[in-house]
């Protein structure tokens, strides 16, 4: 065997395991380096992710879909809002501006709160974040699943009008939720795109939203998308967090996500895998 010259690319027989994961395993090697084909595959994925960051959210069709939901829990029509970041370039360099509503949007939210005249239980805030495709593809199906779950709840939750925010960060939900007199806010936001997951939606729940809160005050459900955490599972998890937040009157590190212990989700509790079985 050692007399034969080695092939320039050595394949990894465990590459077959890629049927179980999107991770770039079993790439093989040229010497100890990436083979040409794998190196170029990576470059292509990175180029696409770069393009995705800079592609804007198409707001009007999204508003139309949200308007069409017509659920009894929803109050009022969806609203289109904008942060103080005027464009993507500013957005990337100045996250502080992405956490605040523009003056026009602030007035619009205040007017909606006045019209409603009473407090809401929960505000759903849809924010473009760093991946417009996450929001474009996954926000409405997630909300639909969540509304269906609410239908089965014994207590009726009153939802604020849904808001859609351009050039926004997670914390902008605190200002919106507070201005709408919502007891809690759930922010649905495009997460930073990965090479293999350009469309991950993140969901952040905050109890008693108001400006000045930080990450320790929120609970996060990450990677909501068909190829990640499925809408139904994510919705049940959010519902669990909402129930707990209302019971404990808090969110964040003081609210532990025990959905798995409560057997609400699908994942089995054992740790079976081929390495140890």
């Amino acid at each position, binding site marked *: 065997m050692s007399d034969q010259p080695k092939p320039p690319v050595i394949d990894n027989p465990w590459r077959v395991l890629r049927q179980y994961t999107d991770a770039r395993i*079993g790439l093989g090697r040229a010497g*100890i380096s990436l083979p040409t084909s794998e190196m170029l595959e990576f470059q292509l994925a990175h180029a696409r*992710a770069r393009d995705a960051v800079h592609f804007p959210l198409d707001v009007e069709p999204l508003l139309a879909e949200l308007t069409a939901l017509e659920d009894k829990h929803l109050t009022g029509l969806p609203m289109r809002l904008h942060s103080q970041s005027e464009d993507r370039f500013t957005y990337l360099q100045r996250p502080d501006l992405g956490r605040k509503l523009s003056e026009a949007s602030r007035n619009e939210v205040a007017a909606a709160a006045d019209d409603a005249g009473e407090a809401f239980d929960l505000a759903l805030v849809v924010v473009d974040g*760093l991946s417009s495709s996450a929001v474009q593809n996954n926000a409405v199906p997630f909300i639909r699943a969540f509304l269906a779950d609410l239908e089965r709840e014994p207590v009726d939750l009153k939802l604020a009008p849904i808001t859609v925010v351009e050039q926004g960060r997670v914390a902008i939900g605190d200002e919106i939720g507070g201005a709408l007199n919502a007891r809690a806010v759930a922010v649905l936001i495009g997460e*930073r795109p*990965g090479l293999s997951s350009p469309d991950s939606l993140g969901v952040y729940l905050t109890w008693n939203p108001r400006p000045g809160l930080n990450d320790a005050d929120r609970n996060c459900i990450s990677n909501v998308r068909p190829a990640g955490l499925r809408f139904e599972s994510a919705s049940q998890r959010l519902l669990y967090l909402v129930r707990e937040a209302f019971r404990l009157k808090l969110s964040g590190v003081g609210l532990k996500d025990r959905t798995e212990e409560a057997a609400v989700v699908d994942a089995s509790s054992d740790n079976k895998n081929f390495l140890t079985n």
Partner: protein
Amino acid sequence: MQHTYSYTLGPRTWQFRDLADLMAKATPARSGDRLAGVMAASAEERVIAQMCLAEVPLKTFLSEALVPYEDDEITRLILDTHDADAFAPVSHLTVGDFRNWLLGDAASSEMLTRIRPGLTPEMVAAVSKIMRNQDLILVARKCRVETAFRDTIGLSGHLSTRLQPNHPTDDMTGIAASILDGLLYGNGDAVIGINPATDNVAQATKLMRMMDEVIRKYEIPTQSCVLTHVTNTLEAIEQGAPVDLVFQSIGGTEATNRSFGFGLSTLKEARDAALGLKRGTVGQNVMYFETGQGSSLSADAHHGLDQQTCEARAYAVARAFDPLLVNTVVGFIGPEYLFDGKEIIRAGLEDHFCGKLMGVPMGCDICYTNHAEADQNDMDNLLTLLGVAGCTFIMGIPGSDDIMLNYQTTSFHDALYARRALDLRPAPEFEAWLETMGVFDDVRRHEPSAGVPGLFGPSLKGLTGGGAA
């Protein structure tokens, strides 16, 4: 205690409000300091600030706290644990003299170890601001920081890796596939560490048990860690979970850590609990910390300091708890803090230098996000520079792509590149395992086995119908 600083050059006198202002303006340019509004207004002002800072005696940092003593438990930790005897050999120096001293031959590895307890993070941050990249590399290379749990990390001429088998749904088969890939590429001697997709105690415990079984079955001289909140790990320990290392993200001000939901007493409690399990075999360093420039500003808890000084203060937190590993996740936070490849590379070298000079087992997550102006070539550059600087460990992930956290870090292949190009070896116990188990054909040439090592054959066979082995 605070007073203004001024520097006269020719007809012009430059004023700096206080020591924090002087430090911030002396810092090489980066977007996070621009965002905070603390950076120099011009390139000239930056160099003038550096000239002024070079004249500041090191002693000044003991009397002028950058974050008030009364308000911040980290300032109290820094000043209350300062060792005047250890400080003595350099106590007469200015910041500028200190740079010369560090580069000189009197600053041997032994001497650098001796003065450590006398150095505060602010002194170390200050001198780093007037050092070029090559200075940061040369001095860091002289620092010796060794730690141990089931293998020995940080020996001279060695480069370890954290095997990071993250999966977007914590799928056990997916995680196992990435662990196998990494092990067969000689990665994982620093730790097998998972960022859980779902952050709760039950999930963390499940992942801990899974990794514990893998490590025991294949007798791998390494340790596991689930990167969940310290309070979750404490609960897991109370429930009897097999915890090797306690993880926590840490920052350099009390307010930053409060925003992360913990304080120094929490870390002490968790460390004591992990030590009580006595799971280490060759050592008992049980903590794994992650840091990164910009976290204090991100939490609105930076007290007007520049982000690199805040970062160095986080290492004072780390060293108080004898960690096995400290990892600066340099490019993860995004372009609003480190805009492009140039800023990420500079920050990575600064963090590594400051950590090592303070005696922290410093590794680096050499990484970038898709919204930063950076690419693989920038990471190759930083990896090579840190390899030369004697970096303790880097990340290892399949094909550089973290499919859970959505960013790019160094790959299993990258680790072999650095080891081969710079003649660095994995931890000795782990290297022996690679050789004994036939995982590598030639450990000195960093050459993996061409096929599947016999040890793993049976596991793969069941899964692939026998074709794999």
